[in-house]
Structures are given as structure tokens and as C-alpha cells.
């Protein structure tokens, strides 16, 4: 871990082939390393399944995480239960690791209106569709923690494209001025739909933008789950102990399309994709290390795959089986108490629903 001013190199613990980087000690407990691996395998498997579910028409859209598992798992594992997480359409894995029930993700992409109702105690805000809008909200939550004397922190997750929005800027500036316990996790996956990083901003890096706000900025290899975990752990600890906000730039890559509506072959060089997929995959990298460290073998892999496949199948079933709510649910959370004019509209929708269901004539 290093602040930007100390080093401009991305921080890495494992080299791409899974060997420890020069001068780095790996002292994480094996159970933590195994957790990282299991979560990444879960993430990859779940993602594949949701992609095909969408292709089958069971989800209305889907935004895959493939390629970004390391930073999301590292982030999720570094969060404490009383920390809050705010992310985007692509950050479901981090949210699941942080405690969001996995079935909420496919439920969301089914377009279910109740998909984002977190269970009590799970501090994950509904996934944000409007780019960067969650970032000032995260700063506000963190500010609330500071004002209430809580020893927790908030992570705001977003892509490198989001850093172009004014909301990112205003949020980071507030965080600097009010010293709020927030970590800005920018997953720089190279692309914002079809816009490459080089056309998104002329700045040397994303992390350097921290200088504009007087906060810490660090770059990390976001395909290296140990480094990602360390970066997030460090930044969150800084936040919790009142040392201030950190902007973490995780260098990673989206292997799939932006969403299932996107065709990346229109804009993305094949060789670039191939290089990331074939030589920098986050899952294989940790597996290589674990195997070399004697913590993993084919038998464990087979049993993990079976577990994960079962869990994924079960999760998907839960999400797909979840019945459609009656249409009038669209009114139910607009206000604490429904105003009279909305009562009437709600009845209209209710009758319409019953009419369509054949339960009412006219």
C-alpha cells in the first residue's frame, strides 16, 4: 500500500502468474485467502449463470462483473458489518460479500420492484443506475457516522467513467473538507461502455485526482485480490480511525459486454480483451498461488465447484420463483402515508390488475 505521492506504481501482491511480487510478504491467514478464492469462484459462476439467464429471457437485462471479481471480493471482505456500501449495477458481488442476499441480484435484473429491500442490518443501498449519484450520498452517510461518533466507514463504488461527473467531484470535495470516513473505490475497468479510459480524462491516473480534494489517493492492481483486500482494508481503517477519505483506483478489466444490451466487438480491440482474459485473470491468479502454497488442489476445486453450483442454482431458483407482486405495489413506498389522490390511483391500478387477471369485468 502506498499513497500516490510515494509511488506511482500500481500496488501488487501477486504477480500475474500467481507468484508473490518482489519484496512482498503474504501474511494473510489461510482461511482469509481461501475465502477470497471461494467468493471469486462464486462470483464467476453466478455471473455466467446470470448471463445465460438473461439470454434465455428470464432477466430483462444484466451487467456482468466477470474480470472484476478480485477487487469486489477484496472490498466486500474488508468491510465490517456496520460499514455501509453504495454501488452500481455492476457491484452486486461486493454487496453480496458484504451481506446482501444473493437472490436480490437476479431479482433486480428481473425488474422486480422489491428487489432492493435489504434485510435489517445489511447496510447496502439499492444499486445505483444514475452514474455517480451514490457518491455524495455515501459521503453524507459517512458524515453522519462522524457526527454520531460511530467507528464505521462507507464505501462508494463506481467506475472510472463516473469520475467525469460533477457528482464525483462535489462529493470528493465535501469528503475532504469534512473529513468523512468514506472510501471512494473506483474500479477502472478501462471502458465506460464504448469510451476508453484515455478519452474519459486526460489525467495521468484516476488516483491522482485525489490531489484536487486534499485526500489520499492510491492505485492498486484490482485483479489481485490480496492487494485489493489490503488496499481496501487500509483505506477503511484510515476512515474508521478518523484519518480521512481515500480514493482507491483499482486497475481491472471488464471481460464481458457492458450489459447484455451491449456489443463490445463494435468498439473494443480483440487483442486487448485477449490479453486481459488470458494472462491477467483474477481467479486463476489466486488459485495458482494457493496451489503453490499447498492450500489448494483439484479435489478441493471439484468440491468447491459442486458447492458453488448448488448455491448458484438455489439462488437463481429463489429469484425466479419469487412471484410478481400485485401491480399496485408501485404506490406502496412513494410516501410513508399515501396521499388521497394516490389512494384513488392505487385503486385504479388494483382494479386494472384484477381485470387483467380475469377477476373483474369491464
Amino acid at each position: 500500500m502506498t499513497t500516490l505521492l510515494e509511488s506511482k506504481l500500481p500496488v501488487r501482491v501477486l504477480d500475474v502468474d500467481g507468484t508473490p511480487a518482489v519484496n512482498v510478504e503474504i501474511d494473510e491467514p489461510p482461511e482469509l485467502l481461501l475465502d477470497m478464492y471461494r467468493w471469486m469462484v462464486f462470483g464467476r459462476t453466478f455471473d455466467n449463470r446470470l448471463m445465460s439467464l438473461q439470454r434465455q429471457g428470464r432477466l430483462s437485462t444484466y451487467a456482468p462483473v466477470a474480470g472484476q471479481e478480485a477487487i469486489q471480493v477484496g472490498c466486500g471482505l474488508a468491510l465490517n458489518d456496520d460499514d455501509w456500501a453504495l454501488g452500481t449495477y455492476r457491484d452486486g458481488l461486493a454487496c453480496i460479500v458484504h451481506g446482501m442476499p444473493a437472490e436480490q441480484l437476479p431479482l433486480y435484473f428481473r425488474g422486480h420492484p422489491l428487489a432492493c429491500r435489504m434485510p435489517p442490518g445489511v447496510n447496502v443501498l439499492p444499486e445505483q443506475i444514475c452514474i455517480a449519484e451514490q457518491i455524495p450520498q455515501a459521503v453524507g452517510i459517512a458524515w453522519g457516522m462522524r457526527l454520531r461518533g460511530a467507528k464505521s466507514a462507507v464505501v462508494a463504488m463506481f467506475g472510472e467513467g463516473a469520475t467525469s461527473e460533477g457528482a464525483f467531484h462535489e462529493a470528493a470535495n465535501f469528503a475532504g473538507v469534512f473529513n468523512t470516513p468514506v472510501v471512494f473505490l473506483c474500479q477502472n475497468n478501462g471502458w465506460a461502455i464504448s469510451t476508453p479510459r484515455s478519452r474519459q480524462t486526460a489525467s495521468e491516473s484516476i488516483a491522482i485526482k485525489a490531489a484536487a480534494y486534499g485526500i489520499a489517493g492510491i492505485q492498486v492492481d484490482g485483479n489481485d485480490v490480496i492487494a485489493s483486500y489490503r488496499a481496501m482494508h487500509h483505506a477503511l481503517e484510515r476512515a474508521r480511525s478518523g484519518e480521512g477519505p481515500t480514493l482507491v483506483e483499482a486497475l481491472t478489466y471488464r471481460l464481458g459486454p457492458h450489459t447484455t444490451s451491449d456489443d463490445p466487438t463494435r468498439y473494443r480491440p480483440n487483442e486487448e480483451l485477449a490479453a486481459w482474459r488470458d494472462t491477467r485473470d483474477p481467479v486463476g491468479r489466486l488459485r495458482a498461488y494457493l496451489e503453490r502454497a499447498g492450500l489448494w488442489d483439484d479435489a478441493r476445486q471439484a468440491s468447491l465447484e459442486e458447492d458453488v453450483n448448488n448455491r448458484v442454482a438455489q439462488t437463481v431458483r429463489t429469484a425466479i420463483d419469487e412471484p410478481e407482486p400485485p401491480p399496485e405495489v408501485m404506490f406502496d413506498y412513494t410516501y410513508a402515508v399515501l396521499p388521497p389522490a394516490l389512494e384513488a390511483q392505487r385503486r385504479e391500478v388494483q382494479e386494472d390488475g384484477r381485470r387483467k387477471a380475469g377477476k373483474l369485468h369491464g
Partner: protein
Amino acid sequence: MASLNLLEAINDALGVAMAGDDRVLLMGEDVGRNGGVFRASNGLLDRFGADRVIDTPLAEAGIMGTAIGLATYGLRPIAEIQFLGFSYQAFAQLLLQASRMRWRSAGRFTCPLVVRAPFGIGVKAPESHSDALEAHFVHTPGLKVVAPATPYDAKGLLLAAIEDPDPVVYLEPLRGYRLGRAQVPDGSYTVPLGKATVVRQGTQVTVIAWSAMVGTSLAAADILEADGVSVEVLDLRTLSPLDVDAIVGSVQKTGRAVVVHEAARTAGLGAEIIAIINDHALLWLEAPVARVTGYDVPIPQPMLEDAYIPTPERIVRAVRATLSF
């Protein structure tokens, strides 16, 4: 009881709310040391400290977005936008985020936020300082919108807005800030959201107004009374949700209506009031509902303000035209 102008009533309400609930905090540009550019928060920094009366950087979306986070975390932020014309910068947060926190999370998270801003013509300020944007908020599901006209209502509605579990846009009449004093009870009381009030009883025509235009409407009613015309003046007070019963009840009684507002006419809130009358009182109407509003131009430079803003005379003419339809 104290005799307060509307601005003092707001200051009083802020103090009462902050003294009564330590989750309440005030944030915005120049609200702290300076006490607000109109002094609405005068004295509050000294009373409640810099953690609760917060001078923010100059960034409306940042104010709104962080206020949402504070509200969702469990505080009760009151976010001041210095002039309503500068709220456009915060529309993405206010109209799409604050309004939907409860809805998106299916009730798990909420956003008990109050947004305060002065609006309307009144202090010969440069452009954008006087813009009347209430229709935008009223068109946004999930928001409530309040616009008091009197010191008593200003305090009671602000305290009700702060207690409300949902986001409330609280609009303050710039020209009404120091226009007159009235008796305002000490301590806490609320005026319920969603309820209009008849501020003058009448039989021949209903004039519907809010905020600064209530006073203008009352002045018109005085002129008309001298002429033997009996005017009922309805102060809506809450613009969302609208008090449909009050509007419809009065128009069914008088058979005629004039709506008054400062904002541009086209697609302004006056249109919705006409639509409500259309829905519920068409058969009672003796004449088309008239609109006395700002024109469909930007709220103009100070020199032209008086030619833009609805005046008692314009309302009188509209009432007469309605009566002789």
C-alpha cells in the same frame, strides 16, 4: 407569543426544531457564521455549534447528495439552497434520488430531508435569483412541497416538514420575508401538510394563490370588495399533495376561479389547478378559470420585475373578466 415577521418565524422554527431533536441539522452556503444571506439562520451557529449549523462548499448537488446520505443514516438535515434558481444543479439528487429513496429500497431506507429555498421576485436581485420553480417539484412523485404565506404558517409548516418522514421542499417567499409581523406562538406547534386554508371568505369568485401571491390576491380582494364583489381567497400552503377538496369545495361554492402564480404560465402549477377543477367541478363553472401568472419569459431583470409579476390590478381585471364572461 411573539410578534415576528416571516423570516424571524423561520429562524424561530429552526431553533425550536434543533433544540428539540439533536438529529436536526442545518447545512448550506453561508448558513453558519453569516447566518444565511437573509439571516434566516441568524444566531444558530452560536447556539448549536459547527457540527449542526454547517457552512458547506459552493456545490448544490453536493449539498443535496450529502444531505440525502445524512437523512438516510438517521439524521434530520435541513438543506438550504441559497436561492431556488440555483436548485437546478441539485435536481438529479433531489428529483431522482431523494424522492425515491424509500421507493427504491421498498421501504428499507428513507429520506427525511427538508430543502429550504427562497423564491420569487422581491429583492431586485440579478437573474436567476427570483425563479419560481415549484411546478417542477410538484410534478415529481415522492416529494412534498410547501409554500407558506404567513409567519404563523411558516413556522408551523416548517416544523411539520422537519417531522415528516419524507423529503419536503419548503419554499420561502422572498418578498414576504419582512413584509409584516404577526403573532407566532412560542415553542413547538405544527400546521398540517396537505391542507389549504381560506384566508378570506367570499361568494362570487375564488382566487387561488400561495406564498407571496396570497398577499397580492388579498389586496385585489380589497379593491374588488370596495366595488361590491365578494372574493374568496384560498391559500394553498401545501403544493404537493394538493388539497383537492379545498379547491373543489370553494369553486363549487363560487362557480368562478382565478389562479395566481409568479412562475411562467405554460405548464405551471395553475394548469394543474385548472385540471383539478375540470375533473371535479366542471359543471359548477360559470366561466373559464383565469390564470394571472408570470409570462412565458424568464423572470426578468430587476427593471422589469414590476411588469412581470402579478399585481392586484391584473387580478382585479381577471376577476372582472371572469364575472362578466
